[in-house]
């Protein structure tokens, strides 16, 4: 247990040291590459400013995550329920994914304005397809034995979907959630880069333009912290949702079954 806590700390320390070494060796001026200590000082000095912008970005990410996961889940359930819908909608989904979401960012700004809505839309869009695909795969790959058993038990279509297919798909749904959690921040920040007046993305662009590279790094650090915490939170949630899913990665000898 102590090793599990210690390891990330050592990794973080090692990376910081590497960073400091690069600063020492290249003798880069602070407006090109500030040292870790300076970034930390800026982080503490500018904490209220950073937190204000981080709050905006976090809200965008969470709203996008909520919306994207909800839409993805509903789409997957509809696709599995109506076969006709699947044949018509699946190609559309795949084509929609072929368009780079980032290319849509300016259009979204135009339609939804410079406020929060366009960023939430970006995050939602970028999450929607992976979540839909993961959920749909999970729902349709139900063990045929379970389905046959349910048929001999006289299960209705509704019971089959809600009590067999859906719980059986939860592990796949968890994978979708993890992917969503790691790409949602990208969507929000790209949205902010294209046009905004608040948020960490805006702060980074602004600081970069004014040669406040230390502030930019501090904002980046906060963003990374948000993304990593979000991932671990979702990972915990996904495990909590599927307590029967044994993690066999660390087990040396599995039981006879």
């Amino acid at each position, binding site marked *: 247990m102590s090793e599990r806590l210690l390891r990330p700390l050592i990794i973080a320390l090692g990376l910081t040291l590497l960073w400091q070494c690069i600063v020492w060796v290249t003798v880069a001026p602070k407006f090109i590459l500030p040292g870790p200590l300076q970034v930390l000082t800026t982080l503490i000095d500018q904490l209220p400013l950073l937190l204000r912008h981080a709050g905006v970005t976090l809200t965008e990410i969470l709203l996008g995550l909520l919306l994207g996961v909800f839409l993805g889940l509903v789409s997957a359930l509809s696709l599995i329920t109506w076969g006709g819908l699947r044949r018509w909608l699946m190609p559309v989904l795949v084509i929609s994914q072929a368009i780079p979401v980032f290319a849509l960012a300016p259009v979204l700004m135009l339609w939804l304005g410079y406020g929060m809505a366009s960023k939430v839309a970006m995050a939602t869009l970028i999450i929607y397809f992976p979540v839909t695909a993961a959920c749909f795969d999970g729902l349709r790959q139900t063990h045929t034995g379970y389905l046959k058993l349910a*048929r001999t038990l006289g299960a209705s279509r509704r019971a089959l979907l809600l*009590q067999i297919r859906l719980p059986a798909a939860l592990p796949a749904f968890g994978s979708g959630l993890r992917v969503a959690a790691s790409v949602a921040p990208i969507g929000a920040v790209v949205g902010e880069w294209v046009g905004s007046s608040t948020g960490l993305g805006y702060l980074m662009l602004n600081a970069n333009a004014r040669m406040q590279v230390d502030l930019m790094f501090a904002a980046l650090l906060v963003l990374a912290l948000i993304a990593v915490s979000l991932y671990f939170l979702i990972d915990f949630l996904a495990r909590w949702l599927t307590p029967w899913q044994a993690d066999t990665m660390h087990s040396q000898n599995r039981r006879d079954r």
Partner: protein
Amino acid sequence: MKVDIRLERASLSWRHHCVFSNLDLELPGGQWTCILGQSGVGKSSLLQLICGIADEADISGSIHCSDGKPLDGRVAWMAQDDLLLPWLRVIDNVVLEARLRPGRREPGQYELARYLLSQVGLTDKADTLPGQLSGGQRQRVALARTLFQNRPLICMDEPFSALDAINRLRLQDLAADLLADRTVLMITHDPLEALRLSDRVLVLNGSPARLSAPIQPSGKAPRQVSDTAILSLQGQLLELLAGEAP
């Protein structure tokens, strides 16, 4: 009320190859019938045809019950894989039928399930998840789930073949005890298992496959593995299976 069941003119072809055709099968009420055969002879498909869950496009046959009613919804299926839902507690797996058909939710079903679990010797496992059970224990839960359904016909598809020798014998004894006087159709590739448990043993063999005349071991199930009559019958069955193999 025991129902005789007849399957008539059952046919199955797979990739334009006739596995069996015009097969007739009689399941006398209250008796344990066993079909013995090698893998690939179509015995699982035959069983699933009776259960109404055969997926093959080229399978057909008509089923008649002696009481004149259709067989739909009156068969319990127990597979080689225990098919316990890993997200439900053991007790919830036993009452699965009631969970999937809310109309059939009645008071006392959990008491019944607990009683059945005590019969299969798993009283203390009722609230654990199936993932924590051993293979033998899981198949016991599957047996309790099958008993909970209380259907006129019980179809078992190699239910004990994934277990080790000792557990298999124990479960055979348990099943023979709990399913005595029920109408049972069991599929197996183990002659000894068939002879220990069933009233009638049929061999499904050849290409296209045909059913042999029934062999009826004497005595009451479960028969002893050391019984000489059973052992000599086992020898005959093995010769029959091996001799007619393609």
